[in-house]
């Protein structure tokens, strides 16, 4: 071996070139293999932390123009409203080949009547005057047509905040193109409230001219006594009060009339918004965007389990503020009394986190009778969640006091006392598909679905991460392939130089009495040692560089979904720590190169040894 090395070292350029190129080839191979492995491991390691959620939005078939009278402009306002020939359902999304980890659902939210609990609305507005639709008797300050703001005095609150009694405010039948006269010596009753219309007309002019006071507050408007309750299929039942009178003169025996009884029934439910708690039924917590995107997060307890979701256990996730406001703890039961169902919006759009409420005014049955609680049960709190304000008034915001329960736990989950009904929207319909399955899903949907449904996907940066890692893998494959090809070329070329071209040396050694095994060892040892040293140096360098690449990523990589591919959007990002660089590729490359080197050299050496030395040397003599 020493002689072999000595002879190699006497062709230093060739030897150093071989060694250097072997180092480079091994470096390429190791770097490629390390990056490939690291990418694969990183994806495998974090696959569970990613989740791909799709939301569904039905696109209107057309837009209908609605003309709404505006008493201030004495003209009709035009409003556009989407028209749907039919509502698609989650079942329509079960097309052949669709792969769901959580099947599509369209969530309703249910309102629980909670007179025994302190709601966010009450806790945040403890002394506020209840201006939201109340029922009261009033008398105008003067005879007037209700086509402009008319001063009235509230004489008696029948349903609503008693603090309103005696207050003088302004009333206009703002949306009625044919308003009635009201007279100051008479008493009227109506459901009153503020809408987004401002005081206008003579009162406003006088105040502006006197310059004593500029009053631009909201005027009150009378509400329809029409029931908000829809039929189970979402259609609106016949109701005489739909376009009927809104203001009634209080005469003797009025409250015994049908209109009077309806007013009294409405008065009963008129203030329940203060005691309402939204309850959302779902099949998986992460299908709810606030939970998926981290706006809602568990602070105590645990999530509802798959089994609990499947068998409809009476368990719930409750918001921290609600639990604190009511002195409740993890494991306590919350009594739920479901009163009505909303199948159009989500809880956050009706019950905002700052205590605002989008109330329903006509909470009586279509026949005018009182609305009854349709389901009562107790839910054990298994998890308490907190909420961060999105600050953007997102449609995905959770509702104040919103309880999350398994959909299966609600017997009347398809909705009783339906107050609103609408198509699937991003806020109410979602599903989960496998990570990386967006393209397949869209391809399948394009084949089997309709263009009336639009999808938005959220993958917490999975697409971008995968794209990045796939790109990295392509690069690593190129490096690996280049390394393999270069290694093969080097081994063939230099084994030709160091072995095949050294057939004379072998023949001399043989003629001097060296056995074939000794000749083989003599020739292979030097070559193999160079291959071994080159591959070790290259593998170590490749390993170090791949470590450096990993370190350059600062240990943590934030995959921001803002720029993620396709329809995916940013919600929040997954922090991904890249997998540690393994030494296995370096070891594997070294062993592979050495094995290949020895193998190639062995074959060539055997060819040399098969040649008869004397004949070979004689041939060379003739040359």
């Amino acid at each position, binding site marked *: 071996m020493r*002689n072999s090395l000595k*002879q190699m070292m006497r*062709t230093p350029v060739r030897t150093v070139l071989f060694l250097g190129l072997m180092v480079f080839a091994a470096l390429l191979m190791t770097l490629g293999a390390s990056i490939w492995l690291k990418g694969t491991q990183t994806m495998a390691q974090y696959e569970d932390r990613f989740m791909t959620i799709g939301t569904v939005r039905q696109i209107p078939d057309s837009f209908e123009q609605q003309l709404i009278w505006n008493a201030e402009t004495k003209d009709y306002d035009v409003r556009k409203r989407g028209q749907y020939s039919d509502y698609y359902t989650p079942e329509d999304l079960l097309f052949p080949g669709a792969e769901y980890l959580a099947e599509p659902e369209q969530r309703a939210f249910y309102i629980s009547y909670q007179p025994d609990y302190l709601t966010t609305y009450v806790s945040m507005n403890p002394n506020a005057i209840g201006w939201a639709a109340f029922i009261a008797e009033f008398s105008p300050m003067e005879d007037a047509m209700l086509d402009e703001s008319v001063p009235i005095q509230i004489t008696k609150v029948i349903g609503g905040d008693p603090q309103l009694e005696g207050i003088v405010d302004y009333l206009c039948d703002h949306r009625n193109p044919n308003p009635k006269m009201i007279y100051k010596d008479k008493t009227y009753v109506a459901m009153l409230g503020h809408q987004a219309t401002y005081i206008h007309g003579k009162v406003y002019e006088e105040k502006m001219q006197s310059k004593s006071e500029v009053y631009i507050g909201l005027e009150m408007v009378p509400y329809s006594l029409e029931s908000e309750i829809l039929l189970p299929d979402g259609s609106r039942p016949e109701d005489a009060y739909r376009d009927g009178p809104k203001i009634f003169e209080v005469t003797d025996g009025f409250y015994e009339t049908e209109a009077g009884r309806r007013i009294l029934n409405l008065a009963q439910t008129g203030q329940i918004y203060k005691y309402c708690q939204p309850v959302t039924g779902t099949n998986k917590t992460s299908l709810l965007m606030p939970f998926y995107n981290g706006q809602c997060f568990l602070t105590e307890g645990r999530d509802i389990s798959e089994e609990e979701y499947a068998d409809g256990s009476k368990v719930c996730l409750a918001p921290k503020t609600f639990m604190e406001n009511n002195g409740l703890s993890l494991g306590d039961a919350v009594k739920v009394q479901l009163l009505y169902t909303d199948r159009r919006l989500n809880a956050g759009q009706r019950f905002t986190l700052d205590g605002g409420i989008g109330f329903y005014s006509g909470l009586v049955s279509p026949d005018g009778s009182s609305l009854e609680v349709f389901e009562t049960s107790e839910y054990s709190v298994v998890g308490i969640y907190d909420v961060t304000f999105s600050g953007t008034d997102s449609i995905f915001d959770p509702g104040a006091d919103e309880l999350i329960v398994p959909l299966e736990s609600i017997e009347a989950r398809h909705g009783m006392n339906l107050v609103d009904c609408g198509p699937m929207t991003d806020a109410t319909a979602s599903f989960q598909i496998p990570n990386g399955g967006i393209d397949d899903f869209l391809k399948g949907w394009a084949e089997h679905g309709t263009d009336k449904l639009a999808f938005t996907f959220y993958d917490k940066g999975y697409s971008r991460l995968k794209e990045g890692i796939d790109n990295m893998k392509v690069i690593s494959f190129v490096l690996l392939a280049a390394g393999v090809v270069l290694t093969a070329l080097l081994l063939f070329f230099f084994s030709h130089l160091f072995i095949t071209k050294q057939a004379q040396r072998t023949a001399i050694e043989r*003629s*001097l*009495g060296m056995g074939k095994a000794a000749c083989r060892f003599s020739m292979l040892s030097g070559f193999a040692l160079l291959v071994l040293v080159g591959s070790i140096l290259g593998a170590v360098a490749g390993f170090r560089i791949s470590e450096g690449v990993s370190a350059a990523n600062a240990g943590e990589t934030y995959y921001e979904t803002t720029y993620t591919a396709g329809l995916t959007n940013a919600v929040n990002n997954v922090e991904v720590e890249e997998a540690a660089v393994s030494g296995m590729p370096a070891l594997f490359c070294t062993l592979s190169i050495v094995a290949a080197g020895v193998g190639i050299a062995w074959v060539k050496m055997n060819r040399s040894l098969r040649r008869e*030395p*004397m*004949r070979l040397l004689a041939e060379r*003599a003739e040359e």
Partner: protein
Amino acid sequence: MGKIIEAENVGYVYQSKYQKTKALTEVSCSFERGKVYAITGKSGSGKSTFLSLLAGLDVPTEGNLYIDGKEIREMDRDAYRMNSASVIYQAFHLFPLLTVLENVMFPMELQHVPKRERKERAQEFLAKVGLPDTLYGKMPNMISGGEQQRVAIARAMASGGQILLADEPTGNLDSQNEAVIVELLVKMAHEENYAVIVVTHNAKVAEAADVVYGMLDGRLEVVRG
């Protein structure tokens, strides 16, 4: 003087994938220490094949070849070449990447002679073939053909055997160097008691031999004995 090599009806057939070629036919002869033997003949007559058999690089396909009374097939032929028989060639065939001294030391390295001893003995052999010590550290390609052949003879001596086989040893040399080499070979036989067997076309070499064989179409005949 006893016979060191004896061939009895030796024949050799080259067998390739497609054909058989008879290179030697019923060759019978013997070689003794202290004599120079020349084997002459045309190219392809079988001289080198016979030399290859004598060197133990192959074995006869027919007949028997005895080395010091032992049939060559029964011998460790690697050990035979290492310790008993050496070959020199027309093209010298020194290790091009070893120095003159290292080339001569090489056979002793195979015999595991200690480094210091093999160096001293190598210098001794080089001195015997008349090579100045200024050349010991040179590479073979830095010295003349005659000098290279002398190094090859010194290397043959270094193996310690008593059989020297030479395949056209003067073929690449000028007449001056040719004379020196022939003189060395004769000296090795007559003074050092080697059996020197030279395959040659060269008449001068043949003239210097004690016994001359002629090889024709694989058959050996005594030309001068």
